[in-house]
């Protein structure tokens, strides 16, 4: 009863492991599948290997995490090898996340991911922790999506930064360029200072805030995107810790729900969320379709 159609990709349940979280190796793809995820997103991949930012890369706060990983990844070639060896053993789809520097790179990486077995491509032009890629390419998003759309047949999702001002016109433009859906939202630019030591904690100085603190922001984004584009696929992401949070995102209009920061409490969280959602629907005699975008 939790099955979801995400722009034509079938998910057994709406819980998607968010990009940046664990999706880096064959073993982890398979493990997240076994732990009950509906889909797994890869960490964002770049054309060449990338070492990421200096440590500390993470600060734990009572209401979330601030991270500045800086998109560490082994490069598209090795990531594709991991996907290729995992896919035949997977019962859920892999969404390949890319952090390109140009339309040419976007096209190349997207087609390599699809060839390797990725069921959808997510374009990350919203990572706040990098200088050369991520959010600094947000103005190129349309161009990137257009070039990928010409190249691959799978759904294209755009990872949306919560720094976008005019959500309706942003998503409408991308939808016209060929985006099938949106993953909303990425982390919110943030900074943490150690007042005893008089200095920023993160090695990258500025990072991205995730976790419960950003959830209401994500809910508002999902709501605005759904109102603007009734037919778009939406993965609502940001601070989902339990089934109630997931239900909230679906009620705002999400088809699927990303989970990431919550996994600091263990991978068991995945099943807790899906079990809770299922019980809620059964108790209330509802389906996911009944509650999706139900709020006026």
């Amino acid at each position, binding site marked *: 009863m939790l099955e979801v159609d995400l722009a034509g990709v079938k998910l057994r349940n709406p819980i998607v492991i968010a990009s940046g979280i*664990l999706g880096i190796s*064959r073993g982890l793809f398979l493990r997240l599948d076994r732990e009950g995820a509906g889909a797994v997103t890869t960490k964002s991949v770049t054309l060449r290997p990338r070492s990421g930012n200096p440590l500390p890369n993470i600060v734990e706060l009572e209401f979330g995490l601030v991270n500045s990983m800086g998109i560490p990844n082994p490069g598209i070639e090795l990531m594709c090898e991991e996907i290729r060896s995992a896919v035949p053993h997977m019962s859920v789809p892999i969404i390949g996340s890319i952090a390109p520097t140009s339309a040419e790179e976007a096209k190349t990486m997207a087609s390599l991911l699809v060839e390797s077995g990725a069921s959808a491509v997510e374009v990350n032009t919203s990572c706040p922790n990098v200088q050369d890629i991520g959010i600094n390419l947000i103005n190129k998003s349309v161009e990137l999506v257009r070039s990928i759309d010409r190249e691959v047949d799978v759904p294209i999702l755009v990872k949306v930064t919560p720094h976008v001002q005019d959500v309706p016109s942003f998503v409408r433009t991308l939808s016209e360029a060929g985006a099938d859906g949106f993953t909303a939202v990425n982390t919110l630019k943030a900074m943490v200072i150690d007042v*005893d030591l008089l200095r920023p904690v993160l090695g990258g100085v500025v990072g991205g805030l995730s976790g419960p603190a950003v959830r209401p922001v994500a809910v508002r984004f999902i709501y605005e995107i759904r109102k603007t584009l009734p037919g778009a696929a939406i993965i609502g992401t940001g601070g989902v810790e339990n089934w109630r949070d997931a239900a909230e995102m679906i009620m705002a209009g999400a088809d699927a729900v990303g989970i990431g920061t919550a996994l600091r409490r263990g991978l068991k969280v995945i099943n807790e969320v899906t079990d809770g959602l299922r019980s809620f629907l059964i108790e209330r005699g509802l389906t996911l379709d009944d509650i999706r975008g139900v709020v006026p």
Partner: protein
Amino acid sequence: MKGRIRKVDEVAEGVRRIVVDIHLKADPGQFVMVWVPGVGEAPFSVSDIENGLQLVVALRGSVTRKIFSMSEGDVLPVRGPYGKGFTLVKGTVALVGGGYGLAPFPLLSKRLKDLDSHITLLLGFKGSKNYIDPQKVGILADDFIVATEDGSVGFKGLVTEILEDLSGYDMVYACGPERMAVELLRIVNPSKVEISVERLMRCGIGVCGSCVLDPLGLRVCSDGPVFRGDVLLRIEDFGRFWRGWDGRKEEIR
């Protein structure tokens, strides 16, 4: 958490015992992430928690170099403890350590002694200048055997060569170079050994995947760092590969 360094002792060449005024609860085998502002962050075994947090720090990279330049009174920020530690077994046990891999043994030996276990301590070092006196770091043991590769202290050879018969132990706990751990798994019942594993870590809390062991997708920071031997035998990376900062596998030399 942060605290001032209370005591620094050189326990071997390039290895220091550091006691920080931080009082925390931790299980033997868990680790903390130590932040050295301006340089970086690295994981360290919780060596002991009585009378402050004890760490055994070996000079290895930029973080430890900076820690070596610190002295009593300097502030050290840490986060944790993290991970899953050793399973405490009441009975006859062996602690097998290579070099500064003995780091988690002080707390482990105390908890084992709380259960009245009989502890045989087996330590291996390269030579006398690397030798760490277990008493100086607070390891409790009923029997103690030491081996050095050059024979300058104790038996000549590898620590794994002196333990021909480990079948009589209810549990063997090990921490040290991965070569030692691999060798150990050849000579003991893998389901009766627990090994502390080291990998590069970023988050330390199980969300980033940097420390993954494949093909099982185990995260050293949160599924470990202590794993049972029979689990490690199913890890193709174990004893062979280490992932660099970009996630690419590099051969363990």
